[in-house]
């Protein structure tokens, strides 16, 4: 009697586990299906499109399948856009991350008054809309815009700079815009990571005679290493896909000099004669670049 009862109880327990896992699958299925339909299927479809050519409503397979990719290597505008994007990446990301670390370590000081206010001020640009801030920066940096007026009044400039019409200054405007916008975002990451660093370490270092710069270099940064890696990967990802600033701030710059890869893809699809296959091929090149850079960063940064 007891045996059958316990056997019954055992059976029930097994089916309980099964029911548990079934319930788990049941809750995961809708989300998985959605991701497959909305993300993976379009990605795969885009890969197939990148092997096709022709009019948008009448795509045919390319003759050597990788024809679009071959053309990409010879496309001067594409190479220009890649150069531009990599320039932004190499200059903007380090500046932004270094500034974010410095701000975070400054704001980590317990004795600083109005810390909350400073934190909010530095983080607030992050909450602005991309298009809105790009358009405002464009107005600020015009020939008779506020920036020129202020700099001339302060005596920094003797003559107004034509920011948006100069190949180097236009890139500088984009970099300034990006640093302004994203420093706060990364700073918040670092601040929250710094909360886990014990205050006694800093006290000990101060007793040993370390000044604040040494504290930053020897204590804070090594301890923040995993977070720095995460933000570096996210920033690289974001900068490689830069679009809004290129479209709204400089409109591709004076003659394609500040155009980014995503902007060029948009132009290929919508402004010029629509070439879907080529646009899809370029998108995949961006994907590969992002993946490679992320892998490199993980290799270099991750000690695990």
């Amino acid at each position: 009697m007891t045996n059958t009862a316990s056997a019954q109880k055992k059976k029930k327990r097994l089916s309980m586990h099964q029911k548990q896992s079934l319930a788990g699958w049941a809750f995961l299925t809708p989300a998985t299906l959605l991701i497959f339909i909305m993300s993976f299927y379009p990605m795969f479809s885009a890969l197939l499109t990148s092997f096709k050519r022709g009019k948008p409503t009448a795509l045919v397979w390319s003759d050597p399948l990788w024809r679009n990719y071959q053309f990409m290597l010879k496309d001067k505008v594409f190479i220009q856009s890649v150069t531009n994007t990599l320039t932004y990446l190499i200059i903007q990301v380090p500046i932004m991350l270094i500034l974010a670390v410095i701000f975070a370590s400054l704001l980590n000081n317990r004795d600083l008054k109005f810390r909350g206010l400073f934190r909010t001020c530095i983080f607030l640009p992050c909450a602005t809309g991309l298009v809105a801030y790009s358009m405002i920066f464009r107005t600020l940096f015009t020939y008779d815009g506020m920036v020129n007026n202020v700099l001339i009044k302060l005596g920094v400039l003797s003559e107004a700079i034509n920011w948006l019409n100069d190949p180097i200054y236009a890139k500088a405007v984009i970099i300034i815009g990006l640093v302004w916008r994203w420093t706060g975002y990364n700073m918040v990451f670092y601040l929250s990571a710094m909360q886990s660093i014990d205050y006694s370490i800093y006290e000990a270092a101060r007793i040993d005679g370390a000044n604040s710069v040494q504290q930053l270099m020897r204590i804070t940064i090594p301890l923040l290493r995993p977070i720095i890696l995460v933000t570096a990967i996210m920033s690289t990802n974001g900068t490689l896909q830069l679009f809004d600033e290129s479209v709204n701030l400089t409109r591709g710059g004076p003659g394609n000099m500040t155009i980014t890869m995503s902007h060029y893809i948009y132009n290929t699809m919508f402004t010029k004669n629509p070439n879907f296959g080529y646009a899809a091929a370029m998108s995949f090149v961006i994907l590969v670049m992002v993946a490679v850079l992320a892998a490199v960063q993980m290799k270099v940064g991750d000690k695990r």
Partner: protein
Amino acid sequence: MVKNEQIAVENAHHCVGNYDRMYTRNRHKKVNGSAKSTKHTCVFASICFAEKKETTTKKEEDWIFMKKFVTLMLALAMTISALGALAEADGKITIWTWDPTFNIKAMQIAKEMYQKDHPDVEIDIQEKLSEDIETAVIASNGDTTTLPDILLVQDNSFQKFVTNYPEVYADLTGKYDYEGFAQGKLAYSIVDGKNHGIPFDAGTAVAAYRTDYLEAAGYTADDLKDITWERFIEIGRDVKAKTGRPMLSGQAGAVDTVLIMLQSCGASMFNEDGSVNLKDNEQLKEVIDFYATMVKEGIFIEVNTWDEYIGTLSNQTVVGTIQGCWILSTIMSLDTQKGLWAMTNLPKLVKAEGATNYSSNGGSSWAIVNDKDLDLALDFMQMYRNVDFYNEILPATSAIATYTPAKEGSNYTAGSEFFNGEPIFAEIVEFGAQTPSNITGPYYYDAREALGTAITNIILQGGDVDTELATAEDTVNFTMGF
């Protein structure tokens, strides 16, 4: 009942943690209701909050089921209604166009005139920017359910869109009477010998100048009529020296002015056979020569945005402008400058063959979308063969007709108050008759962008004209070679 409640609540508390442990605990307790219902309650409670009652009566179960059913039906209904937003032949005409002072106003007047005789036809005019319309057509990928019945297409983009989306743009050959429309204008909407559009406004280029600034330098508007670009640059230098103002302005890299100058001698960026004509285009080189000289000497200032360009007119920074005649509606909106403007024709090129003082920039045509209310739309578009209609829209929008009989209208021959009584509209129609046409083709915007890059390089970085044009031609050939 109370005991069940207590047990259920107790179980609910433990539900948040280990499910298995909870079930074991539950099994050992004696409950009045079925163990099953308590278990279900705990399952529910582990996800939501603790239930007060541990069994649901039939009535409550029915109510819960009803709620779920109604929610599901609502969701379905909303999805389906969203899909059927712009249905097919629905007896209603939807129109997409831009510019409330120009195209939209013209369509509103057409709507009023049409509804006098057909009061039961619904016509919906929606404002949509030109780029947004183009994006919407591309994004539709040939699916006409998301598109309106009639949309406005820039003449420069017409060939590109009809070539790429033949299933979207209805073939109107034989269905609409094209007698009386200017040939040069009609050519933009003819693809492969078939008519796909109904011409709307003429983009005839005009030169408009501030007479007060010219007087300050000792010139009148007549001194700028029928001249060459060489003479224009001379006058420009003088005016700049005496008044400090540049003669013209334009958007940097937008090549509007360069293309106007190019078309004035009948040349284009493409040859008859569709091949690119940039590298060996001697007329283009002469144009670039004049243009670069003007920019360098400050006779022509390049600004960064379209708003800045309009700003040079409203803030009175420049002496004049050379642009399509649609700029007149913007100029005439500047009430404080009434009576200070004069209009004349363009300067012409010197060395180029077939150089004239006339050109055009812009202008658009109406296209009707397939698989929709084609006959109704065609009936409505008969308004664009109505001389009274063109007469009506002229003072309101300054839209110049490309329908030749319209020039007899009273408003065309009347003088314009803003321009000191000059009959500018009749003059513009005359200009239009002498404007050479040009070749666009599907790759017009590719060539335009490449030319813009070349000119930016020439002016900003002092690049060599021949090299830059060769690069531009290579870029366009590359795009065409896909």
